[in-house]
C-alpha cells in the first residue's frame, strides 16, 4: 500500500470542521468516489472532526490518498492531545454520549467507513483512523 498524496489540516475551531469537510469532499472526488461514498466519508469526517474539537480540545486531521494495487482509497487520521477515552467500548456504543450530542458519532463514523481504527490513552490523547476504498 503506497501513499500517493498526504496533507494535514488543523481542527481547532468550528470553521476548521467546515474546511475539513470541504477538503475531504474534494479528495473523495479526486479519487473518483461516487456521490453516496463521498457523502459517507464527508459525514464520517465531520463527526470525527467535531469529536476532535469538542472532546479532544482540538487537533489535526491527516488526509492521505492511498493505493493498494489497482484500488485507490482515502485514509483520514484524526489526532488530538486531549483527555483521551477511558472506555472505548462504551464510547462506541450507540446513544452513549459524554457530552450533549446524540451519541452516534463514533459508531456512525465506523459504519460509514470501510476501515476504522481507534486508539486512545487516557491523559495523552486519541487517534482515530478511517478509510474508504473505491
Amino acid at each position, binding site marked *: 500500500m503506497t501513499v500517493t498524496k498526504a496533507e494535514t489540516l488543523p481542527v481547532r475551531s*468550528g470553521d476548521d470542521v467546515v474546511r475539513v469537510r470541504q477538503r475531504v469532499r474534494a479528495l473523495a472526488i479526486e479519487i473518483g468516489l461516487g456521490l453516496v461514498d463521498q*457523502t459517507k466519508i464527508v*459525514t464520517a469526517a*465531520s*463527526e470525527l472532526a467535531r469529536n476532535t474539537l469538542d472532546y479532544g480540545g482540538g487537533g489535526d486531521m491527516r488526509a492521505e490518498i492511498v493505493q493498494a494495487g489497482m484500488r485507490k482509497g482515502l485514509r483520514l487520521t484524526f489526532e488530538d492531545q486531549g483527555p483521551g477515552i477511558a472506555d472505548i467500548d462504551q464510547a462506541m456504543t450507540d446513544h452513549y454520549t459524554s457530552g450533549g*450530542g*446524540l451519541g*452516534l*458519532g463514533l459508531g*456512525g463514523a465506523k459504519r460509514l467507513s470501510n476501515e476504522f481504527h481507534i486508539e486512545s490513552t487516557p491523559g495523552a490523547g486519541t487517534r482515530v483512523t478511517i478509510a474508504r476504498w473505491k
Partner: protein
Amino acid sequence: MTMDGTEVLKRTVTEDEAAILVGWTAALRDSGSLQSGRIREAELQTQAKAVLGQFRDALAAGGLDADSEGYASLRETLADISRSRAIQGFTPTDTANFVFSLKEPVFEALRRTSAADASALAAGVWAGGKVLDRLGLHTMEVFLASREEVIGRQGQEIAELSTPVVRLWDGILALPLIGTLDSARTGVVMENLLQAIVDEEAEIAIIDITGVPTVDTLVAQHLLKTVAAARLMGADCIVSGIRPQIAQTMVHLGVELNVVSKATLADAFAVALKRTGRKVVRQQTSTEERR
C-alpha cells in the same frame, strides 16, 4: 576602511532624490501597476514622491531600524497605500513591488555616488536592501491584514444571512435551509420559525434541507430540536429535500428523524395541502372555454 552603510545610504538618497524618483516612477510604470488601469499615473507619482520624501526623513531620524519611531509616518503612509491597493484589487505582487522596485534606482544612485569606493558601495547596498525589504514586508503585512478584514466581514455577512420563513399558503410555512447548520445559526432559525408559527397561525411547517451539504449527527440533532419546539407550539413539521445519498448516510449513522419526510419540497407541500383539507386541481375546461 569600513564604511557606515547608513551614512552612505542617507547621503545618497538626500543628494540624489530627484534622480531616484525618476528611476522609481519609470520602474513602477514598467512593472505593470498602471496597465491594469486601477490607478492613474499622476496618483502613482504623488504616492512615490511622498514615500521617497518620508523615506529620506526617516533615514535621517531613525537610521536603518524600520520599526523605530522615525519611520512611523512612513509606515503609516505605506499602510494607507497598501490598504487602498487591497481594496482596489491589486495582486500581492503589485503591492509588494511598489516598495521593492525602489531598490533598483536606489542601488543605481549608490553606484553613481560611491563608484570609486567599493566598500562604501557594498555597505550602502546592504543597508538599502535591509531597510527596503523590511518596508516591503510591512506593506505586505498591512495588505494581508486588510484582505483578512474583508474576508472576516464577508464571513459575518454570510452567517447573518437571514433565514427567511416563507408562507406557502394559509397555515403552511416553509423554511428553506441553506449552508452549514451550526449551533448559532440553528438558534436564529428556530427563533424565526417559532415566531412565524405564531404570527401566521401555522399548522404545518416544512423544513427544506436541499441546500444543506452535509447532514451529520449535529445537524440532525438541531433539526430534531427545531421540530420538537415547533410541535410544542402546535405545528407539525415535514422535513423535505432529503437526497438519496443523504438518506443512505443517515441510515448508516443511525439517526432517526421521527418526522414525516419527503424527497422534495413539492411533495411536502402536497402532503401539507392534503392534511389541511385542500387539493390542487387542474382546470380542464379552460382551453375549451377560450375557443
